[in-house]
C-alpha cells in the first residue's frame, strides 16, 4: 500500500511541474492548470490511505467536513470576485495555505511541548521555521488583502519599525527554540509563539504602501511554498517537499523580477515605506501647466493618426474600462489605424494584471507589447493614450536623479508626438510624485472616469 501511495505522490509532483511549465505559454496554459488539478485531487485522495489516517473514523468525518467548509467558501468567493479584485483574492488564498502550514506545525509543536522529542533535531528546527514562516504569510496576506480591498487605507508606521520587527523576529525564534529544544515548554508557549509570529506578519506588512503590494503578495506566495516544503520534511512527504520548494523558488524569482521592474529592492520594500524617506522634499519645479481637452477633440486627434498606443494602468481596472477600450480599438482599426498596447511590467496591481483584463475584453495578445518592445517605437507614435496610469509613464524616472522613482523603467509616452491622458482628477499617483508628463506641451488631459471617458471617445469616433 505504501508503494502505491508513493507512486501517486510521485505522479502528482510530475503533474505539478509539467502543469506549471505548460502555464508558461498562453497556448498551453489552460491545460497546465488542469494537469496540476488532477495531481492535487489524486494526492489528496491518497493522503487518506496514509497509515493511521483511516483508523480514527471520527477524524475522517471531521476532515471531510473541513474540506467541504473550506472548499465551499473558497469556491463561492473565487467564482464571484471581479477580475479587477483578483490580486487580493490570490493574497487571501495564499494566506490560507500559509495558515494551514502553520497549523500543521502547531500540531507538531504541541506534541513537542508535551515532551515527545522523537522527531529529531533537524525536523524540530524545520517544524518551528515552517510554523513561523506560515504564520507570517497568513497574517501578512490578510493585511495585504485588507489594503488592496480598501479596508485599510492608511500606511501605518511605528517609530523604529525596523528595530521593532527585527527584535520581534529574534524573540519569536527564541521562543520557537525553547519549544523545540527546551524541557519546560508548555502549550501556552506554543500559543505565544504563534501570536508573536502573527503579529510579526502584521507589522511587516502594515507600513508597505499599495504600490508595493504585488511584490509583497509574491513574496508571501514564496513564503507559503517554503513553509509547506518544511512541513513536508516534518511529515516525510515528498509531494509536499517538491511542490512547496518549486513554489518557493519560483515565487522568489518572480518577486525579484517584479521588484526589479519597479526599481525597488526587496529589502527596501520590507523595511522602508515609499516616498517618506526622500523625494517629496526635493521635487523640482514643473514648467508649463496641465492642458485640458474635450473628448470630441481627442477622438478627432486619434481618428487622423496612423499609429496609436494605448497605455492602461490601474485606473482602467478600477473603472472596468477594458471592454470600452476594446471597442475603441476596433473602431480605430476599422479606420486603418495601427493600435498597440503598451504594458508596464507592474501596471495595475500585479505583473500581468493588465494583460488579464485586456484578454477578458478580447484584445488579441499579439497586440500587447512589453516595455522593451514598445519604448523604441514611441517617436513614431502619433497618439499615446494613457488610461489611468501615472507613475509608470513619469519621465522624471529618467531625468531627475533626486526623484524616489529615478531609475525605474518607464514607458516613454512623453516621446510620442501627442499624448492624451485620461485621468480621474488632478492628484498624483501612488508614489505621491508629480508627473511631468502631464505638464508637457504635447500632452492633453481628458478628465473623467476611465470607462466614461473612453465611452465618450468611442461616441466621438462614431460621429466622424
Amino acid at each position, binding site marked *: 500500500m505504501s508503494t502505491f501511495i508513493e507512486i501517486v505522490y510521485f505522479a502528482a509532483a510530475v503533474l505539478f511541474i509539467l502543469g506549471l511549465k505548460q502555464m508558461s505559454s498562453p497556448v498551453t*496554459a489552460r491545460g497546465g*492548470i488542469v494537469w496540476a488539478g488532477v495531481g492535487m485531487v489524486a494526492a489528496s485522495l491518497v493522503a487518506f490511505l496514509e497509515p493511521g489516517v483511516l483508523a480514527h473514523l471520527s477524524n475522517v468525518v471531521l476532515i471531510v467536513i473541513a474540506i467541504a467548509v473550506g*472548499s465551499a467558501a473558497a469556491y463561492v468567493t473565487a467564482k464571484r470576485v471581479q*477580475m479587477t479584485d483578483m490580486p487580493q483574492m490570490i493574497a487571501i488564498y495564499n494566506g490560507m*495555505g500559509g495558515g494551514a502550514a502553520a497549523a500543521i506545525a502547531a500540531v507538531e509543536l504541541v506534541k513537542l511541548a508535551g515532551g515527545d522529542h522523537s522527531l529529531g533535531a533537524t525536523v524540530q528546527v524545520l517544524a518551528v521555521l515552517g510554523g513561523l514562516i506560515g504564520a507570517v504569510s497568513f497574517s501578512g496576506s490578510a493585511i495585504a488583502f485588507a489594503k488592496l480591498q480598501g479596508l485599510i487605507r492608511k500606511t501605518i508606521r511605528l517609530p523604529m519599525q525596523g528595530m521593532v520587527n527585527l527584535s520581534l523576529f529574534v524573540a519569536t525564534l527564541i521562543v520557537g527554540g525553547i519549544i523545540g529544544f527546551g524541557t519546560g515548554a508548555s502549550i501556552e508557549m506554543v500559543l505565544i509563539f504563534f501570536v508573536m509570529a502573527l503579529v510579526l506578519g502584521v507589522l511587516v506588512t502594515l507600513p508597505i504602501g499599495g504600490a508595493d503590494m504585488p511584490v509583497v503578495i509574491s513574496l508571501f506566495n514564496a513564503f507559503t511554498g517554503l513553509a509547506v*516544503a518544511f512541513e513536508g520534511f516534518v511529515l516525510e512527504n515528498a509531494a509536499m517537499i517538491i511542490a512547496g520548494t518549486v513554489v518557493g523558488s519560483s515565487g522568489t524569482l518572480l518577486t525579484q523580477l517584479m521588484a526589479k521592474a519597479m526599481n525597488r529592492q526587496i529589502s527596501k520594500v520590507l523595511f522602508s515605506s515609499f516616498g517618506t524617506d526622500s523625494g517629496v522634499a526635493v521635487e523640482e519645479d514643473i514648467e508649463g501647466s496641465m492642458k485640458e481637452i474635450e473628448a470630441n477633440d481627442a477622438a478627432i486627434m486619434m481618428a487622423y493618426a496612423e499609429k496609436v498606443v494605448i497605455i492602461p494602468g490601474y485606473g482602467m481596472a478600477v473603472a472596468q474600462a477594458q471592454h470600452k477600450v476594446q471597442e475603441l480599438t476596433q473602431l480605430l482599426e476599422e479606420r486603418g489605424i495601427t493600435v498597440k498596447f503598451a504594458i508596464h511590467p507592474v501596471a495595475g496591481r500585479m505583473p500581468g494584471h493588465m*494583460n488579464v483584463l485586456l484578454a477578458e475584453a478580447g484584445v488579441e495578445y499579439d497586440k500587447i507589447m512589453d516595455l522593451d518592445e514598445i519604448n523604441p517605437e514611441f517617436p513614431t507614435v502619433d497618439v499615446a493614450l494613457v488610461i489611468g496610469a501615472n507613475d509608470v509613464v513619469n519621465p522624471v524616472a529618467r531625468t531627475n536623479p533626486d526623484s524616489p522613482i529615478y531609475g525605474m523603467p518607464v514607458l516613454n509616452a512623453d516621446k510620442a508626438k501627442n499624448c492624451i491622458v485620461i485621468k480621474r482628477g488632478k492628484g498624483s499617483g501612488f508614489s505621491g510624485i508629480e508627473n511631468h508628463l502631464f505638464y508637457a506641451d504635447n500632452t492633453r488631459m481628458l478628465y473623467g472616469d476611465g470607462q466614461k471617458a473612453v465611452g465618450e471617445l468611442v461616441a466621438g469616433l462614431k460621429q466622424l
Partner: protein
Amino acid sequence: MIEGFTALYIFMLSAFTGYEVISRVPVILHTPMMSGSNFVHGIVLVGAIIAMGHAETGLEQFIGFIAVALAAGNAVGGYVATVRMLEMFKSSKKGEA
C-alpha cells in the same frame, strides 16, 4: 523514508526546477502564473489530512480541522481563480474562439 541528504537533494533539485520553470514565463502570464503556483502549494492539504488523521487530543483535532479547512480553501480558491483568469486567453487566439 526520506532522510538526511536525500531530502536535501530533493530540496535542491526542486528549487532549480522552480527557478527554471518560471524563468521562461512571459510577462502577460505572470498573474495567472502566480495564481497557479499559489494553487500548487495547496498540496499542504495532504499534510493537513495526515496531521488531522493522526490527531489524538481535542486540541490536536481542533488545530487539524483549521489546517484542513484552510488548505482546502487554498487549493480550491487557487484553482478556480487560475482557471477563470486563463479562460480569458481563450478568445485571444485567432481562429480558436
